């Protein structure tokens, strides 16, 4: 892991750096699995290894692969890094040892979550319970951040070219990949079903809205990569996706408002149904649905914005 990071720091060719970044992310995810953080590993796998590599490649395609040597200030950087590293290491003297069960972090609210989440929410996966119920506010805020980021990317990279000037060079290039096209055709339904499974199985195993959203989006991205982004945009309409991105946030928020109207706190799902546990379960399900929709839509928007930019760059010099 360290070696990978060092290699990334050293490699000049940006493309190689991006590839190594993919490996680095896979390593991180396996590390998370070893440390029992299955949900996190899941997310890191689908996000880090998939989407982020692709986005970096897209950006690379737009900016050019070579790095200039002139602006390489290693001395200054080394000094800064060494000083702050030493300070941080000094800070670790008082930290409790790795993997001890008596560290302060395990004494505060975590035991409550682990012991009571089953009775209070009826959800086996504690991570999901905390994500959607106990810390629903945080998650709502983060969902809004994702939504805002997608809006920001859309605003920054909005294509000014008229749509009929589309030239799908990539689709033509992919036309000859017969084997690839057929395999992808077989895979996409499986991926979509798997995304739905992850979405609704999040209560019982690793999974949930964030992961499912990204997997769903990656199915669409795969389609657009192999069949051309024009074809993909006929399948998933741009406007519909934009509406969906907002809809997910709205679902999440309105669940909160409804519970507010029922006389409880914002996002207190116990109010939704007569039986508090059932209410919690329903609330978590709805909220995860909202998360999934927004994340999927936001990722698709971001990807399309990037790939449209690539296409329009190709058109403009002609």
């Amino acid at each position: 892991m360290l070696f990978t990071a060092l290699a990334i720091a050293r490699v000049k060719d940006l493309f190689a750096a991006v590839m190594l970044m993919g490996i680095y992310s896979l390593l991180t995810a396996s590390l998370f699995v070893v440390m029992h953080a299955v949900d996190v590993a899941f997310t890191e796998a689908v996000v880090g290894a998939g989407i982020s590599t692709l986005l970096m490649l897209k950006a690379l395609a737009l900016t050019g692969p070579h790095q200039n040597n002139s602006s390489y200030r290693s001395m200054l950087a080394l000094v800064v890094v060494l000083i702050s590293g030493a300070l941080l290491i000094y800070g670790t003297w008082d930290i409790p040892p790795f993997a001890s069960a008596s560290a302060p972090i395990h004494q505060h609210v975590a035991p409550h979550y682990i012991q009571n989440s089953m009775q209070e929410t009826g959800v086996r996966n504690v991570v999901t319970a905390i994500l959607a119920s106990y810390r629903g506010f945080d998650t709502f805020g983060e969902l809004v951040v994702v939504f805002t980021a997608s809006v920001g990317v859309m605003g920054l990279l909005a294509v000014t070219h008229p749509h009929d000037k589309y030239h799908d060079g990539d689709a033509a290039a992919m036309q000859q990949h017969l084997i690839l096209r057929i395999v992808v055709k077989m895979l996409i339904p499986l991926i979509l079903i798997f995304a739905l499974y992850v979405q609704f199985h999040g209560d019982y195993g690793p999974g949930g809205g964030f992961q499912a959203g990204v997997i769903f989006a990656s199915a669409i991205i795969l389609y657009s990569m192999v069949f051309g982004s024009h074809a993909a945009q006929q399948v998933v309409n741009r406007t519909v996706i934009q509406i969906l991105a907002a809809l997910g946030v709205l679902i999440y928020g309105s669940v909160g408002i409804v519970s507010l109207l029922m006389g409880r706190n914002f996002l207190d799902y116990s109010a939704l149904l007569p039986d508090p546990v059932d209410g919690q379960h329903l609330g978590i399900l709805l909220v995860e649905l909202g998360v999934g929709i927004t994340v999927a839509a936001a990722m698709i928007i971001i990807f399309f914005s990037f790939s449209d930019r690539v296409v329009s760059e190709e058109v403009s010099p002609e």
Partner: protein
Amino acid sequence: MEIMIDLLLNIGSGILLILGGFFCVSGGVGLLRFPDFYTRMHAAGVTDTLGAGLILVGLMLQSTHLIVLLKLILVLLFALLTGPAASHALAKAAMHGNLKPLLYRDKSTR
């Protein structure tokens, strides 16, 4: 009888796992030692399908729940579908990218 079946299953899965591990390692060594890209790809292909397949089948013999078995079959299916497809696409891209296979040990290409 039950014990016999259990024992057989364990031995079978053990053999498969060891074989799979062996193929993986040999493929990995090949990936490192072979002289050019296309031969390396051949080595990687071995680990992708044969090694992965053997290990996954070995795990299947050890699984106790139906859902676990089902998921393993799915993983195997994906591995068998995507591995060769990715290799094929990679070879094609390398070919288009004017990367010549190393046919003889000489420097003159065309």
